[in-house]
């Protein structure tokens, strides 16, 4: 299975399906674009308008969010493929041409990421210290639950969940000490327990208004009608994930880079709590679904099931489950506001914890590579970006900075400058 040709073919298939579904307004990856596409049917907007908006919304996401992580790990972030194919599928009117263009784009993007990643390996000492960037993130993952509680419920809740998380972690790590990486596995257990408590609390909050699902009925029917397009995409995404060729967001990609598949899967499942409300509601109000379903549980299946056939079945089954459960999700999101708040908090936590952990990792890696000047460069660039109003996503700054330090160290070594 580990052949570059098969890899490119699978990325091509994902690009083709993703562009065709965007073209036929079956599925749109970008949550903000999904609801704008309704206006194409009403004649308010043209394909050119929507493609321009898609490009505008997506470009920054691809360049300063997804690309740095993909280039340093060699693992393609799904944003690079699906945001690009959103634009392609909407801009090109003919479905066949859009599909071919999408496939070409996806193959090109995958090949570019692989080439640059391989190129970086010839830039000593860029890659050898890369794992140091991600290590603090792997250790901090259980704190995602604490940060979620903090975002949603404030300091006191954060304190309680911190104590809960640390206690469960200690107990689980003790119970799992015979396993390889028992400590990290214990952290996953702690995160799971904390999130179960937060979900239970969120479900207790009820909306005062009675559920009226009539607004969603025609949209639910439209999404379900397109099952034949959607199920294969779930399968392809899971197969790509099963080979660690694709990831859903920076934390997953970082964990895959450390060969910690189950940590990547834990984060992918955690992100479902964050994205189910936004993906679910934008899908339910538009009748247009997401190629990646509720991000990123198709990927989680792939991270856990290395057999490609098993992963394909799992991915398609999860997409099928999403389609079957649409009405239930509509009821959940309209009657349980706590779930939507939990989603906001979860997405916030996915910034708070990694921002600090990757900064710590970036400083460690850069100082190992470039000495005190390396650490100075990472912290300095982080501060400058912050003071400039954060034109670069803070999560990406330490990675960019580390690459600069590695490049400088490589050049210095080449020129014989002592470190």
């Amino acid at each position, binding site marked *: 299975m580990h052949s570059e040709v098969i890899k490119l073919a699978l990325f091509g298939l994902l690009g083709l399906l993703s562009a065709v579904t965007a073209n036929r307004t079956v599925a749109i990856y970008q949550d*903000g*674009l999904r609801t704008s596409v309704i206006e194409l049917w009403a004649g308010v907007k043209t394909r050119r308008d929507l493609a321009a908006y898609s490009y505008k919304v997506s470009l920054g996401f691809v360049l300063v969010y997804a690309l740095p992580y993909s280039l340093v790990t060699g693992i393609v972030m799904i944003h690079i493929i699906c945001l690009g194919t959103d634009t392609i599928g909407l801009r090109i009117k003919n479905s066949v041409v859009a599909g071919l263009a999408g496939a070409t784009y996806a193959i090109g993007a995958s090949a570019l990421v692989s080439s640059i990643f391989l190129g970086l390996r010839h830039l000593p000492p860029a890659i050898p210290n890369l794992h140091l960037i991600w290590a603090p993130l792997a250790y901090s993952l259980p704190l995602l639950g604490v940060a979620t509680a903090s975002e949603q419920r404030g300091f006191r809740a954060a304190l309680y969940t911190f104590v809960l998380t640390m206690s469960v972690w200690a107990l689980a790590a003790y119970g799992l000490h015979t396993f390889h990486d028992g400590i990290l596995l214990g952290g996953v257990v702690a995160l799971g327990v904390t999130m179960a408590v937060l979900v239970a609390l969120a479900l207790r909050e009820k909306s005062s208004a009675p559920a009226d699902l009539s607004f969603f009925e025609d949209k639910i029917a439209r999404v379900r009608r397109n099952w034949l397009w959607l199920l294969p995409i779930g399968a392809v995404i899971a197969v790509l994930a099963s080979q660690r060729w694709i990831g859903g967001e920076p934390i997953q990609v970082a964990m895959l880079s450390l060969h910690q598949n189950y940590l990547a899967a834990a984060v992918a499942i955690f992100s479902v709590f964050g994205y189910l409300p936004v993906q679910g509601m934008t899908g339910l109000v538009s009748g247009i679904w997401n190629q990646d379903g509720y991000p990123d549980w198709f990927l989680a299946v792939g991270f856990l099931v290395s057999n490609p056939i098993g992963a394909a079945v799992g991915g398609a089954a999860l997409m099928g489950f999403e389609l079957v459960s649409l009405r239930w999700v509509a009821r959940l999101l309209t009657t349980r506001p706590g779930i939507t708040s939990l989603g906001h908090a979860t997405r916030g936590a996915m910034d708070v914890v990694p921002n600090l952990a990757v900064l710590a990792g970036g400083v460690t890696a850069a100082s190992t590579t470039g000495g005190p000047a390396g650490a100075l460069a990472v912290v300095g660039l982080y501060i400058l970006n912050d003071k400039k109003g954060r034109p670069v*996503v803070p999560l990406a700054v330490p990675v960019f900075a580390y690459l600069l330090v590695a490049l400088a160290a490589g050049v210095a070594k080449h020129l014989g400058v002592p470190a």
Partner: protein
Amino acid sequence: MVKIAVTGIGKERIAELALASGGGEVQVEIKTDLEAAFAVKAKQADYYIGACQSGAGGALGVATAILGSSDAVRLSGTGTLPDLEEVAQAVREGRHAFGIMHSHIESVVPVLVREMVEKSKTSGQV
């Protein structure tokens, strides 16, 4: 009194900034995106402010579906800095729903809310 419904990542901070910038002239309610969008549609709220990672999805996606893209505008996003003149202009143009990248809440919300209050005072309209 300008009524603002806020939602999304950092909604509590948006509410704090809106109240601090509104000089006692604003009323803020934290809602889900669907509730906030329908509140504006039903004229129970004058404005909608949402935030997310892109300023478009979780921030504005549902509002765009409910209110239409002519009423909903993305003010900042990933990889770019917000243009504060455009922020104020969006209010003057009569838009009612605004999406912001959550990293830009601190710079955008005060300008946005002051413009809402100014518009309300000078024209009596929102």
